[in-house]
């Protein structure tokens, strides 16, 4: 193979990776922003994997029924709110542990989605529109790489909004106070438990929207293998991003690129080790967690009430 074709192959691989990163990162972005809100209030919701799958199913079903993908997105968010309320309410009972409830909801949400989603496997729902950022280019590859979904800019804007809100808005400060020191929040008259339930419901909404992306944009259908741990990886991603919405957005793009590695190589004709390349995001998650988590000390930026980061 001559040098020029090598360069060409690498260039198109890089483009495929870029396109994949922009495409695949959206669910990571939404779920991690949602989990960021929940964890800022001092609770962890490991059940977002179940919420993601349930949102994907609900969103697809409603889009199919109503003919509107946007109503589907809304419905997916509402599925997430219900799951979040359930998590928030259960964890508010004495002696109930948030990690265990998360695991239970992971199994419950996927089971429910598989049950209700059985009739949705065949029919085709209307898809979310995409935005052509690459319309200026002659290269078809570049155009396809820059054909992004409408949810991505919304998610990035939301990351900016949350970044501002956590620092400068009244509700953001109340949320962080509840997450950092419940006793102090109570002394100031903030209702700790309702704020936490609300934060978990808001997190569920965003995770549900992330699920709607899976079924209504990419891959753009409903089936039982739709999510393979994106919800859980997004939870890990929040830790790596140290509870900062802007860093969540960057990390989501990184995870998107890792998730796009398998399909990108396949599009270049490299099919050997397909399963291994598909495992790249999991390996990346573990590696990032190992790099960012220092034993024996509390993580910088961690909400003080978050039980599982305390050693």
């Amino acid at each position, binding site marked *: 193979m001559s040098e020029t074709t090598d360069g060409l192959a690498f260039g198109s691989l890089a483009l495929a990776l870029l396109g994949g990163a922009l495409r695949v990162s959206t669910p990571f972005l939404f779920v991690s922003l949602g989990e960021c809100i929940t964890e800022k209030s001092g609770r962890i919701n*490991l059940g977002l994997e179940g919420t993601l799958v349930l949102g994907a199913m609900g969103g697809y079903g409603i889009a199919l029924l109503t003919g509107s993908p946007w109503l589907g997105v809304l419905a997916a968010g509402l599925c997430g709110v219900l799951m979040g309320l*359930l998590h928030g309410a*259960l964890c508010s*009972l*004495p*002696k*109930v*542990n948030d*990690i*265990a*409830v998360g*695991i*239970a*909801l992971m*199994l*419950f*949400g*996927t*089971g*429910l989605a*598989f*049950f209700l989603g*059985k009739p949705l496997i065949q029919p085709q729902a209307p898809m979310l529109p995409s935005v052509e950022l690459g319309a200026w280019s002659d290269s078809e590859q570049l155009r396809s790489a820059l054909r992004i979904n409408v949810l991505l800019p919304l998610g990035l804007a939301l990351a900016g909004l949350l970044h501002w809100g956590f620092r400068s808005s009244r509700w953001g400060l109340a949320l962080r106070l509840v997450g950092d020191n419940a006793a102090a929040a109570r002394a100031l008259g903030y209702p700790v438990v309702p704020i936490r339930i609300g934060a978990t419901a808001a997190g569920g909404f965003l995770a549900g929207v992330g699920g709607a992306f899976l079924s209504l944009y990419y891959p753009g259908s409903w089936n039982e293998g739709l999510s*393979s*741990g994106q919800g*859980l*990886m997004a*939870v*890990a991603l929040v*830790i790596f991003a140290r509870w900062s919405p802007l860093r969540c957005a960057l990390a989501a793009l990184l995870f998107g690129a890792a998730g796009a590695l398998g399909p990108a190589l396949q599009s270049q004709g490299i099919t*050997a*080790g*397909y*399963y*291994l390349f*598909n*495992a790249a995001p*999991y*390996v990346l*998650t*573990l590696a990032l*967690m*190992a790099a960012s*988590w*220092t*034993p*024996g000390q509390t993580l910088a930026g961690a909400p003080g009430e978050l*039980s*599982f*980061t305390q*050693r």
Partner: protein
Amino acid sequence: MDAAMNRAMRAVAPLAPFTAAALAAALLFAAFLAAQGFEAPEALGLVVEGAFGSAFAWQNTLARAAPLMLTALCVALPARAGLVIIGGEGALALGALAAAMVPSLTAGWPALPVQLLMALAGFVAGGAWIAASAWLRHVRGINETISSLLLSYIGIALFNFLVEGVLRDPASLNKPSTPPLPDAVLIGQLPGLEVHWGLVWGALACAAAWFLLRRTVFGFSVGVVGGNARAALMAGLPVGTLLIAACFLGGGAAGVAGMLEVAAVHGSANASLLAGYGYAGILVSFAARHNPLGIVAGAILVGGIGASGSLLQRRLDLPDAAVLVLQGTLFVALLAFETLNRKGTRRV
């Protein structure tokens, strides 16, 4: 007399929240089905019938209970050390794969040593995979719940990669599988029953785990680590070693579950192995409050729910995920009723 009554009451008391949770789950499941126009009372009846209604149902239930006992130990043993491990499915997959490789390396050996070696291979493969989570937790401080599930996904990817790649039997056309085991090393049925010996293995493993945790110095030390790791460290206990050992034993149990699925059910390693026993085992262990003896009962219950799936599908045309909904509902209800337990719960 009074003392005996008290003892009996104390033994039964922990069952009260469980019973309440099971009833609540049944009611919620019935309401869920009724809301969709299914015959709810009939469905509940069919769950009981499909799980325990006939000799055939019992055999189906017990055949499912066998791997569940072992995958539940993958949650219960680490839980004693204070770790929440949910990666049993990956340990099961790799245990199955390791076990399936043994017969081709030991051609011509008598059956029993091959079977024992298969169990050992499954044990070590599954154990190493879960021990890695404990190691990551101890050395790098990574949350073991997340890492164990990520490692499980990686393990399943590795399983698929190898079964569809270098380890694939060229004769398995439609369904990539490893070469079939020789008939001699297959694990047979219990005398007079259509249930394989794995049930006995599982029950023995639970009994052994109970003895280990409740009657030995090792088990006591693991419990101290789970109760208060800092205090354990101050007392001079080798915390890291204990964490890793508890996870290795638990993962090993899940690996043996994989070995049994290969040697007693499927005859080779293929994707049918990954039927969710690793995930259902989490429910079993939580239902048993991580008590190894309770796991035997819990595995029969959850195995029964799984066994009733095909009957629900046949008679009422319910999707096969109905059993997942019921299991999920039961899990959520169990945790909700945990709050009624007078004795405070542990972190896990």
